[in-house]
């Protein structure tokens, strides 16, 4: 059933009148036109659709839009601050931590969630927490280096 859902999206209060059982991924990509968040598998395995909900990295393909009512949602489009790249974005670009770039928003958002939990990360922590984000081009080595760089910068 259609329902008015109000939440904060990339820092702005928004409301949308949709079937509240619809998955957040599709509401973001269609109703809000925020196409940076990607579909990869639809069942929460690959992490391409990762966004932050109340500062926690979540799989938007498996979360109904009703569950973000009153919460804060952050997508890749909301990560830049005053037109400045976030240290993670800068590090991903500079360290060549991407190839086709399709999994990149999910990677960056998952890493951002990680940095929100703990700003200083060890190599093992990065590996463990990033393990369920898939990159078929296999830029894993550079992604880890980029997260390490950003982590150091944010200390």
């Amino acid at each position, binding site marked *: 059933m259609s329902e008015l859902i109000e939440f904060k999206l990339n820092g702005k209060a928004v409301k949308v009148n949709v*079937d509240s059982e*619809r*998955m957040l991924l*599709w509401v973001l990509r*269609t109703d809000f*036109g*925020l*196409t*940076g*968040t*990607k*579909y*990869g*598998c*639809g*069942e929460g*395995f*690959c992490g*391409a659709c990762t966004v932050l909900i109340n500062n926690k990295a979540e799989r938007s393909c498996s979360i109904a839009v009703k569950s973000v009512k009153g919460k804060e949602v952050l*997508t*890749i*489009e909301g*990560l*830049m601050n005053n037109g400045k*790249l976030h240290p993670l*974005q*800068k590090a*991903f*670009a*500079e360290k*060549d931590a*991407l*190839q*086709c*770039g*399709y*999994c*990149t*928003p999910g990677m*960056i958002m998952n890493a951002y969630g990680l940095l929100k939990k703990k700003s200083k990360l060890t190599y093992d922590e*990065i*590996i*463990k927490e*990033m*393990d*369920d*984000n*898939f*990159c*078929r*081009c*296999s*830029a*894993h*080595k*550079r*992604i*880890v280096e980029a997260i390490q760089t950003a982590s150091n910068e944010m200390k």
Partner: protein
Amino acid sequence: MKNDNYLEMDFKDIKTPFEVDRREFIKLLGGGLFILFTVGDTLGYVQQEQRRRGELPTDFNAFLRIDEKGKVSCFTGKIEMGQGIITSLAQMLADELDVTLDSVQMIMGDTDLCPWDMGTFGSMSTRFFGPPLRAAAAEARNVLLELASEQLKIPVDKLSVRQGVVYQKSNKKNKVSYAELTKGKKIERHLKGKPRIKDPSEFKVMNKSITRVDAIEKVTGKAKFAGDMRFPDMLYAKVLRPPAHGAKLIDVDLSEVKKMSDIVVIQDSDLVAVLHKYPDVAEKALEKIKAKFSLSESKLNNENIYEHFMEVAGDPKVVSHNGDINQGEKQSATVVDETYYDSYVAHSPIEPHTAVAKIDGNKVTVWASTQNPFTAKEEVAGALKVASENVRIITPYVGGGFGGKTRNLQIVDAARLAKLTGKPVMVAYTRKEEFFYDAFHPAAIVKIRSGLTSSNEISFWDYNGYFAGERGATHFYNIPNSSTKVFGSGWTGSANTHPFATGPWRAPGNNTNTFARESQIDIMAAKAGVDPFEFRLKNIADKKMLEVLKVAGEKFGWKSFSKNPSGKGYGIACGIDAGSYVAMIVEVDVNSKDGNVKVNRVVCAQNMGLAINPEGATIQMEGCIMMGLGYALTEEVKFRSGEILNKNYDSYELPKFSWLPKIETVILNKKNEPPQGGGEPAIITLGAAIGNAIYDKLGIRLNRMPMTPERILQIIIKK
């Protein structure tokens, strides 16, 4: 590919839809200097394409333009799917033309703006596109120097160029820019001769590592993929799919779905689809369709497929032959007779196949994730029965291809549905559809019989490959009596070979062939009681291969084994792909209780001739290594009677961060040699290097990929 930005900036003078042939569009562009050139791809693909189309454009298939603002654009049908040519091709142009990298723009994969191109695959872009692109740029520079000479009244040899400005060497104030030179002119030149291209010592941009030109768009979420296109009234389609390959639709009941509000239902012969303004709502609607399919007639599964291969193999093609196999066998003290098996592997790009089709009047435009937009154009024209000049394929960024985005079924579906509904339509595969319609890397068999003399030289080599194809089938060892034959035609097989589509997968066939050859060499080294590194040094005939192997050995710190297997878990493999030479040494740990393999370290040396963008080439090598762990260790498509049992990533394991080994790459410094392929070669050696390392660790030999924990445990238990 900033096609759309480009359109806004520079193509305002073109009325769309426009119907023009390849030659005509140059007339439609504004002023400037145009250099038209031909990319002479020399691999078999060209001949295949020639046969299929009955013709090849002989005039030109790419061009570059220096416009009246001094901006350089290169128009090519090649596409960017992560391999980085949007950067490396731009680097070449910038260097030859003496302009800055940011004044170069690549216009790629748009069938209306770019001349015909066969597609992006086979690590060919840099090898075959590079030299003529550089020559065209050098020609452009010559033309511009001549123009400058006339204008400045200074002979050409007294002039030099820096950042798009021609100046007098002795008086830099005497200068004129490319923009000023091309203003108000329209000069068209066909590249015919071979202008002097720069010597590597003169490179300012090439052969240097730079950040990818598409990086910022991709880290901010702004980069547009096919699925990110939005049009007013656009509908998302979900198409009714059979449960198995070979299953036919017998009966369909659409009564339930037709009751749903806002759902558009289409039934057009074999095509049954539901459409809605939300993709997720369309997907729910699809579940309401009651359909009955016939059972697939295929009886094939993962186990009986190999028997089937031997039955349908037919006659072989002799790839190479020297000496006399029987004679060689007679001289042998030891004979090794082995059969190797490889499995079906999915491409599985994280971006599933996607297309958006839009029809305005008689013009069909499709934004698609494809590696071969010009093939897609013909396919759409055929399906809609329209002239192909009325079809335009635009390729935004492609989210990974690996050879898998050469099958354009989703493009045809989208075009048909756009015509049937009269609205823009997106078809984007679900992960399940992506697995189902993938043209898999084919399963294959390789049988090798080979021998050793009493002095541990290879006496004969009898190689028979089934359905792996020729790529990487020949060897580079010194063998007096040798035969290499292949059965079945490469990755497609003949009709009735495979129960579903198969196709090129990163370094097609070479992963299988290299796994077989390098495992066999290792077995012979063990039989000879010789260290596998020493054995290769002694028996490799190809000097280039010897050189890369030595470089890899040095980097790894190889010390001769006192016994083989050594128990250390070291494995070596060598191979040649797309003109590049690769030697790889890995170190593994194997858990003998659960069969799990952890690859700790991978050293890879590669001779790829001139590396245009060494950083890009290194990234491709790292990607090959990480991706190669998958086909070697876990990736296997499971199937039964035409059904694909892998529906999502819970039953198909891709390499993950926790698998990441210590990766060390070396690119040999060969800047005076022509550039060779870089996107595929380093993937071919993973299977054999890991298999050989498992042998070195535990003394067990796996002859089937992937080398899963179950298969490893089975052998351990048997032992």
